């Protein structure tokens, strides 16, 4: 990292402000903490992806011939645990939220910088516990930790992993708390709520979920660990405990957690689509409010994971109804993004390609969610590959695609460097093709009836599984390429300038990479969000460089 600053940047910035390991590990600068998170989650993404490749290779043939059944069970469990708790949940909020929220609201830092650093350490300690359970034989409960399997029957290291998940939860809570307080208390003068970028709205909604949902998971995990260690019996049917209570408590967090993963992604899409169509996001108020609506409704739908689990008919119907409601704000967002393109002036830089991919894949992911909300169909397809395909369309097609969009969009801001566009466009294409080839066949597999978490399967499912594995190898190349050319760009990339996309937003009004305290002088905001008309107007500040201070 240090080398960048030497080569070109004369202006002091957060990267060259200080050197050495200590200056990174003890930093309270939100931007450096964002980079720490970026490095950590990238490592976990590669690890989770490695588990995924082994899973896909095993499923190439119907017989369980590559790894043992136990090994396979551990692979999908660790794929899930690593990808969800160590990659998807922190991916956008802890990296880009950390890096961008203070800059977007015109603040010098998050409200509680030390808490922010603590949250990274807590995350790493939690990750350490999870890695410990991976190394000491792995975990085989599935990422859902369903009782009584996890509490009584599993022979793997459940307590260490549970402790890890519990601890990373606090990192999530602290990040969410920091973002909420920052948005409330640290906004620059003139930056009213309705002038906030939609990225901020999305992160605000996400943070509300983090703060309200995560502690419930925490206490649930504590009860699981107590039960496993001391035979508490709370979830054990032999003692009159109710295993379904665990599922209720678990999904009370883990369904909203899905929105922790997708809402920030939606915020990223709003920023990118506005910039590359040079337009204000269509229906700003509705897009902002739909984030809040998703956060609220998201807390009321958890039992749709449990239609077949033995809940009453009427409970299932009520949760089904509420689940249909939560589909609406997502649809509203998709329509508004599409309408944003209308009469825009559209260019096709890499982040925009990811935006197109996101809208298409998220639409499919969302619509197949409607299938699952319909109890009548869910009874057939739940716990099959249909569900696997659905949530990968949302989590990978949605969140990971948006994460890549964000990475390509703000990379020049974070590093001051440009990456090679040819490579990045090629990798975006590979990701799109590879993704669809991997996961579309899984919808068909699911309706055919192939259950998830199967180590071996009947022979008639093989052709579709081979397609899926072939797609996964393309997807892997698509994911590895950005890591290589982005790392390359740190050393050899062209200087990006302060605002290569001529984007709106306060973060683009400071230099790239930004100075330690973000702005030389606290900006005063006199414009609406996405004021592309003013930026692109003749004589407007289209090519503004450096800090602009109004008022």
């Amino acid at each position: 990292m240090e080398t960048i600053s030497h080569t070109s940047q004369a202006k002091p910035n957060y990267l060259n402000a200080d050197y050495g390991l200590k200056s990174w590990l003890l930093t309270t600068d939100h931007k450096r903490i964002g980079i720490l998170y970026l490095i950590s989650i990238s490592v976990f993404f590669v690890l989770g992806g490695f588990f995924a490749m082994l899973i896909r290779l095993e499923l190439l043939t119907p017989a369980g011939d590559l790894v043992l059944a136990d090994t396979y069970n551990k692979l999908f469990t660790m794929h899930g645990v690593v990808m969800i708790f160590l990659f998807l949940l922190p991916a956008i909020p802890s990296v880009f939220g950390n890096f961008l929220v203070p800059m977007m609201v015109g603040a010098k830092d998050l409200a509680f910088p030390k808490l922010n650093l603590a949250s990274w350490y807590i995350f790493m300690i939690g990750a350490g516990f999870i890695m410990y359970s991976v190394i000491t034989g792995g975990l085989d409960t599935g990422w859902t930790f369903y009782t009584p399997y996890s509490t009584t029957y599993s022979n793997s290291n459940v307590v260490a992993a549970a402790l890890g998940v519990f601890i990373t939860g606090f990192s999530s809570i602290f990040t969410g708390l920091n973002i909420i307080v920052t948005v409330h208390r640290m906004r620059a003068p003139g930056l009213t709520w309705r002038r906030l970028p939609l990225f901020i709205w999305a992160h605000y909604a996400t943070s509300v979920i983090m703060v309200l949902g995560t502690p419930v998971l925490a206490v649930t995990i504590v009860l699981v660990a107590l039960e496993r260690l001391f035979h508490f019996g709370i979830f054990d049917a032999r003692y009159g405990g109710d295993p379904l209570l665990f599922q209720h408590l678990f999904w009370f967090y883990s369904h909203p957690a899905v929105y922790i993963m997708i809402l920030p992604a939606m915020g990223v899409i709003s920023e990118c689509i506005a910039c590359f169509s040079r337009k204000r996001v269509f229906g700003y108020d509705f897009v902002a409010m739909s984030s809040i609506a998703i956060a609220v409704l998201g807390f009321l739908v958890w039992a749709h994971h449990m239609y077949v689990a033995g809940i009453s008919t009427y409970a299932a119907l009520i949760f089904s109804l509420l689940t249909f409601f939560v589909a609406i704000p997502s649809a509203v967002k998709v329509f508004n993004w599409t309408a944003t393109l209308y009469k825009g002036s559209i260019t096709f830089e890499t982040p925009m390609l990811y935006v197109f991919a996101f809208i298409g894949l998220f639409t499919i992911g969302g619509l197949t969610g409607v299938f699952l909300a319909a109890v009548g169909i869910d009874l057939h397809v739940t716990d099959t590959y249909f569900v696997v395909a659905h949530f990968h369309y949302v989590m990978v097609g949605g969140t990971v695609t948006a994460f890549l969009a964000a990475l390509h969009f703000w990379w020049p801001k974070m590093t001051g460097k440009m990456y090679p566009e040819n490579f990045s466009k090629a990798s975006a294409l590979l990701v799109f093709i590879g993704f669809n080839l991997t996961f579309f066949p899984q919808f068909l597999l699911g309706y055919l009836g192939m259950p998830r978490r199967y180590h071996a399967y009947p022979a008639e499912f093989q052709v579709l599984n081979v397609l899926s594995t072939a797609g996964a190898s393309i997807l892997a190349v698509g994911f590895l390429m950005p890591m290589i050319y982005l790392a390359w760009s740190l050393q050899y990339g062209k200087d990006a300038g302060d605002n290569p996309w001529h984007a709106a937003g306060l973060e683009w009004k400071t230099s790239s990479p930004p100075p330690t305290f973000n702005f030389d002088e606290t900006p005063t905001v006199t414009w609406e969000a996405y004021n592309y008309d003013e930026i692109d107007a003749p004589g407007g500040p289209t090519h503004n460089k450096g800090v602009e201070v109004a008022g």
Partner: protein
Amino acid sequence: MWEHLPLFPARASTMAGHVDALYFALVAIAAFFTFLVSALILFFAIRYRKARNPHATQIHGSTALELLWTGIPLGIVMMIFVWSAVIFFMQTRPPKGAMEVYLVGKQWMWKFQHTEGQREINELHVPAGRDVRMVMTSQDVIHSFYVPAFRIKADVLPGRYTSTWFHATTPGHYHLFCAEYCGTQHSGMIGEIVVMDPVEYDKWAASGVDGSLASAGEKSFQHYGCSMCHRADNAGRGPNLTSVFGHQVLLDDGRTITADESYIRESILNPGAKIVSGFKNIMPTFEGQLSEDEVIGLVAYIKALGNGTANLPLPVSEPNSGAYPVAPKPEGSAAKSDKTATTPEKNGAAKPAARQ
């Protein structure tokens, strides 16, 4: 080639058609919206690319449009909700008079017991053209009974009974999967549903059976001494179990519940959980002493008592013939030969019940 690449599961139950119809409707809706959004994006991307449209026209939004694209999807999903709810009611409400098959799931096998007395492992024979209700429980972790060709799935939980039902239409062999992850050999917990012609099924069910499930339950009822207290003459220390199943039971804390399979099961294993009004908590627990199979036998027997196809036995001193169905016996005869009963009232002394 379609044997190697099936794209659609077999339809072998009355439910399959309903589920598939809704599925196709949803596929059509999903395809329509996916193509609509994709086509719009493609069209806008080409029509309003920078080369052709160098200056964007700012549009802040349109409340009319927002209402439109909130209202239309809302209307559509509400229709889907109603449609799927109708199907769901069909899926969860077994028709009256359905034949019953009991299932015990354990790591990693399915054990079936037919009321006629047949027992099977990982293979279930059922007749085509009849309603079959599954009464299911697990010996260890949560499993899930899943027959794709029937479009049904229901979790199998430890400590309680869950149920599902189907009406198979086409004879043949179909997959049975465990759909809820249950440990090492989860993917090996598969079996086969053999749907038979009803006539052949009846032959199959009657062959080589030494007594029905209820008669096995009756034996257990005697063997474990249940008949000492649960007496047909209402003179025992426990409630008379004739005509209990399927009826309302008043509990000592004032609640009223319906005596279903789960209630009977709980009352055998955790007798103290729900005490019938007017009785004392004196029954010993049978937790850990009865296998799930024996419990199922007892449940089937008490169920038979409830619908009049079986009667409470004569007191234990008389040997049980084992014949089934037992001919109805006059009710009064039961009390006379009971040697152990010390207090004839229901609210007898609160001392542990005599155990055999």
